């Protein structure tokens, strides 16, 4: 296949989608990421973002970012190993380590790089990484970068994990299990308290991805370990600052030796410029808000319960979600795209998710509930979901 043929093959599906008029990806947004957004000039209720707590536009977060720009400028002009580690980078890393009760943490330019870069550095040829079948693409890419073998177990099926652990017990290298605390397309939670008894006796390392759970799970929003009250339930915690903090960037937190190794062997860390100080300050301010304004965490969960209850009573199938990530299962790719287009026309901005991003015949609309959604936003959205759901014969 020539270069041109390769490009054309990639474009064929995209062209089909564009020609259908159903493509709603990458719409032009001209406002901040609040409970409503201006999408192509029209105000819509925002159910597409992962800024669950709404901190990206919180005045204190914006103020912290502005102060950091005044002090440091917009970038540090180098990688963290060169001149990219400022006092506030160190302060944020300490805050993340404290959140998880571990010795150290480090910052990556993105959550993707934190996951991929940590696996790449901590596993190698001859090692084995056991991943949940629905982990984020960054985990798979990290395995490929590392040269380690990768095996997958059925999503959240600890019996299958147990069998996989037993069947791979003669592997010579070390083994690592990687799970997401909250699954990004399903909103269900990793059964960590059933995973640790399988891994601990055999010395298998446990890595969790806190992308959709930091700031969300647990009484104080500290994440999966607080949710299950199992402070030592994971060996390495990776995550992102683009969800709860509404900024960008990623992190890894673990014992000091692990972080020291990562800082010198994780290519995405070593060979990328460090996160801009404004973003670091914004993320730090988000951690402070979690403590000083706990009402956002409470409001988020109130909205999650409202949405889950009322969607269910309308007759929608929300799968196994128990978090702000709520899928509305439709199971028909064309119907999802058509329904999403209709919702956008009616002022609801949600995300259509189809195969291969989710398993075959499980196409869905994905909603991200926010703490800053008011009761009026939710009422309007639910009325619209009900009308569109009936129009598309999803609900009676």
């Amino acid at each position, binding site marked *: 296949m020539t270069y041109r043929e390769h490009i054309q093959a990639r474009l064929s599906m995209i062209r089909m989608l564009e020609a259908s008029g159903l493509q709603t990806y990458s719409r032009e947004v001209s406002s901040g990421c609040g409970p409503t957004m201006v999408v192509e000039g029209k105000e819509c209720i925002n159910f597409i973002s992962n800024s669950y707590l709404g901190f990206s536009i919180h005045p204190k977060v914006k103020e912290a970012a502005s102060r950091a720009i005044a002090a440091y400028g917009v970038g540090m002009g180098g990688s963290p190993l060169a001149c990219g580690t400022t006092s506030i980078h160190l302060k944020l890393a300490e805050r993340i380590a404290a959140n998880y009760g571990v010795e150290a943490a480090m910052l990556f330019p993105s959550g993707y790089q934190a996951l991929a870069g940590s696996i790449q550095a901590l596993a190698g040829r001859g090692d084995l990484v056991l*991943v949940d079948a629905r982990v984020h693409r960054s985990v798979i890419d990290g395995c490929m970068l590392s040269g380690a073998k990768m*095996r*997958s177990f059925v999503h959240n099926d600890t019996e*299958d994990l147990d069998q996989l652990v037993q*069947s791979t017990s003669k592997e010579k290298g070390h083994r690592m299990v990687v799970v997401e605390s909250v699954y990004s397309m399903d909103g269900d939670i990793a059964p960590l308290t059933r995973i640790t008894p399988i891994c601990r006796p055999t010395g298998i390392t446990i890595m969790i991805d806190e992308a959709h759970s930091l700031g969300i799970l647990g009484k104080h929003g500290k994440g999966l370990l607080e949710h299950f009250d199992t402070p030592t339930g994971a060996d390495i915690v990776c995550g992102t600052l683009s969800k709860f903090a509404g900024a960008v960037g990623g992190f890894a937190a673990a014992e000091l030796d692990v972080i020291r190794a990562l800082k010198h062997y994780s290519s995405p860390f070593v060979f990328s410029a460090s996160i801009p100080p404004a973003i670091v300050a914004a993320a730090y301010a988000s951690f402070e808000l979690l403590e000083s304004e706990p009402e956002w965490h409470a409001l988020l969960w109130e909205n999650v319960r409202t949405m889950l209850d009322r969607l269910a009573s309308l007759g929608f199938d929300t799968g196994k979600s128990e978090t702000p990530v709520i899928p509305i299962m439709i199971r028909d790719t064309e119907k999802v795209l058509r329904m999403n287009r209709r919702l956008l026309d009616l002022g609801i901005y949600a995300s259509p998710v189809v195969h*291969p991003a989710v*398993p*075959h*015949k499980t196409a869905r609309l994905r909603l991200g509930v926010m703490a800053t959604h008011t009761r009026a936003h939710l009422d309007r959205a639910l009325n619209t979901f009900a009308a569109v759901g009936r129009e598309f014969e999803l609900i009676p």
Partner: protein
Amino acid sequence: MQDVSEQLIRNDLVDILCKLASLEAQQIRSEDRLREDLGLDCLQSMELLSRLCDRYPIHIEVEDIVDVQTVGDVVKLLFEVVSSGGKQ
């Protein structure tokens, strides 16, 4: 290994497919394509190969299954490998 029949291989394959892709055995037909009809993604396809290699003492490279599309193709390939002593 020569005693392994195509039927036995098919039963094992269906068993693994049911587990990995949450399917019922009666849903799976020989002409079903792994990706388009049964919905296996790359990760599931790789895991299918690994589980088959766990179950039979064989070695198959990912490159060897590039042209494999249907359930019947997998059974045929596996039977050939098993019959030839375990290596493609």
